[in-house]
């Protein structure tokens, strides 16, 4: 028998109570990213940008470009095992480093040695992983840079946990985690963003959308309107920014870090940029993308964009350009010289850090290697 068939007043008794009015837990509108990547350079807003900041960014970008070129050359010469270059992405790398205070933490991926160097890490130490003499060439605590992370997206939960721990302790420390567009497909990306939002952790996620995950274009990675839109589903703001506009990147990152620091919670930033080089020196990009596409992006080069602004405003002349180039050259010469020296290796290190207290089994194996090395030495 249906409700309609019930006679008169009895019908009311059978009508189900309506559910309570449904309210979204968070208003999604303020979380939404802009429709277009946020830009400063080439817009009216550029005129009010601080000249000192522009010049600092310029010097860092020029140095970063030179660093990438030098590391690439060293790889060709066999001095590095592999180099994932961030050429074309310098504005993001430098922006990430400059956004943080000393006490903050950076969680870089394998592509982000430049961010680590811009944060103050010794370039040789930053490149240790890629040279192949050890996995991490620096003490993470010294500059508060977590080990360069290769298993994609796995560094993101770490950043959330560290930020959460800092907040529990009452420290106003922010963690900045870096990841590529492809990495956002991994489960750890989802889990990290969800934890961050639920815990209101002081963490900023910077996605460098450089168009590709090795050969796979973004279109095969996601059907979302943008990667920044993913933020809304977690209840955090998403920001879309032109990743080749150093001033815009600096501003957006700065706002997100400040927001995290004052207890406002996490932000997801998608920086739209482009990987100008192949995935690594071992990759052949001609197999999956046209040179013409690369050329299109060359016209939107982060250094050129900034240089144009500086020149237009009369803040940079040939002398200034040369000074920046010269400083970069000095850094490169120093890096070259130091990387051309063979690293001093002790094979016994293989057993030194597996456990805090070496096991009897490892002592046995260490003795075996020691005997082999001694015999090798004797035979020489």
């Amino acid at each position, binding site marked *: 028998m249906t409700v309609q068939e019930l006679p008169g007043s009895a019908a009311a008794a059978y009508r189900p109570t309506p559910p309570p009015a449904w309210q979204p837990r968070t208003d999604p509108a303020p979380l939404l990213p802009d429709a277009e990547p946020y830009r400063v350079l080439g817009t009216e807003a550029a005129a009010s940008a601080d000249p000192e900041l522009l010049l600092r960014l310029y010097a860092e970008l020029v140095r970063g470009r030179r660093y990438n070129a030098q590391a690439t050359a060293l790889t060709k010469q066999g001095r590095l*095992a*592999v180099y994932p270059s961030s050429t074309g992405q310098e504005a993001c790398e430098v922006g990430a480093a400059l956004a943080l205070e000393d006490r903050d933490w950076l969680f870089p991926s394998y592509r982000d040695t430049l961010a680590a160097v811009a944060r103050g890490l010794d370039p040789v130490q930053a490149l240790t992983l890629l040279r192949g003499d050890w996995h991490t060439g620096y003490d993470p605590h010294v500059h508060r840079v977590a080990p360069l992370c*290769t298993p994609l997206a796995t560094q993101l939960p770490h950043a959330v946990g560290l930020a959460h721990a800092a907040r529990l302790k009452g420290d106003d420390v922010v963690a900045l985690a870096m990841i590529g567009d492809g990495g956002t*497909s991994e489960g750890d990306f989802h889990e990290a963003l969800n934890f961050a939002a639920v815990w209101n952790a002081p963490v900023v996620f910077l996605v460098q959308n450089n168009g590709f995950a090795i050969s*796979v274009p973004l279109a095969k990675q996601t059907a979302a309107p943008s990667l920044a839109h993913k933020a809304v589903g977690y209840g955090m703001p998403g920001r879309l920014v032109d990743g080749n506009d150093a001033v815009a990147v600096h501003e957006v990152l700065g706002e997100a870090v400040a927001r995290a620091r004052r207890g406002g919670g996490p932000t997801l930033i998608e920086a739209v940029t482009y990987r100008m080089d192949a995935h690594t020196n071992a990759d052949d990009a001609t197999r999956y993308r046209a040179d013409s596409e690369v050329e299109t992006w060359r016209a939107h080069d982060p250094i050129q964009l900034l240089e144009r602004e500086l020149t237009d405003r009369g803040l940079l002349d040939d002398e200034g350009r040369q000074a920046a180039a010269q400083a970069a050259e000095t850094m490169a010469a120093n890096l070259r010289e130091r990387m051309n020296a063979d690293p001093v290796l002790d094979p016994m290190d293989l*057993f030194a850090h597996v456990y805090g207290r070496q096991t009897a089994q490892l002592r046995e194996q260490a003795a075996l290697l020691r005997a082999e090395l001694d015999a090798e030495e004797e035979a020489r």
Partner: protein
Amino acid sequence: MTTAAVKPATMAQALQRAMRDAMAEDPTVHVMGEDVGTLGGVFRVTDGLAKEFGEDRCTDTPLAEAGILGTAVGMAMYGLRPVVEMQFDAFAYPAFEQLISHVARMRNRTRGGMAMPITVRVPYGGGIGGVEHHSDSSEAYYMATPGLHVVTPATVEDAYGLLRASIASDDPVVFLEPKRLYWSKAKWSPDAPAAVEPIGRAVVRRSGRSATLLTYGPSVPVCMEAAQAAEAEGWDLEVVDLRSLVPFDDETVCASVRRTGRAVVVHESTGFGGPGGEIAARVTERCFHHLEAPVLRVAGFDIPYPPPMLERHHLPGVDRVLDAVARLQWEAAS
């Protein structure tokens, strides 16, 4: 086809050909993974498959190993035969949940009602100068999981035959490809492929009378070289290529050890809790009265895989194999 016409092929090419032939014969075979389509895989093992069969048959997936294997489970449920590629050994770990909780035990959970004809291809092992997470030997994890076959070729011919057999298997196979042998060559013709052997048969690569080297995958060439070098010392070594760790060919292995009376297990994976422990125990249990010496193991050290500049100290080489052979209590025999 005459032998003269047979050109050398690499292991990578033989693997590609195995997938190609399987796809041509069976429309339910689907290849999927990261960069397997347009690029043809970072090792070019799937080169040309997307072009020949279309992107629905050879698919660049989103970058998520759990998703790749999880969706393969669903595809298998609906009658497809997925061949998934994990880009590197250590990047298969996000897929562990799907592998251990579903792929391995679906047949058992459903009392045989639902099989999982999935091949999980995993490039594994070191010796290629890879930076961290690119050189793991993870076979012990897979071996320890009931429901999975674990197969690994050491020759170009076997790469073809074993991959065909794995794809044809109605049970899931973790197919471990020794990445430093990808570019190894042999005169091999896909037009006259070796008979496709069922999974689970070891093969004697070199016969000898003094002792047996039990090995697989990347360590097979090392053992062959060691056997050659051992001749100068007066040892005539037999080399058994296991080819399949699960199922394990007790018959071939024990027949060899009973004949020689001595055995050394050689692999790159760590020794402690590694495959060699299981192998040595099985041999001891079955051949005890034929053994002249304890079964020894030569393995990678019990350490995280080292950085490229130190990996030569870690990898079991010819000298370590010969040292182990020397410790097989020869004095007692004379």
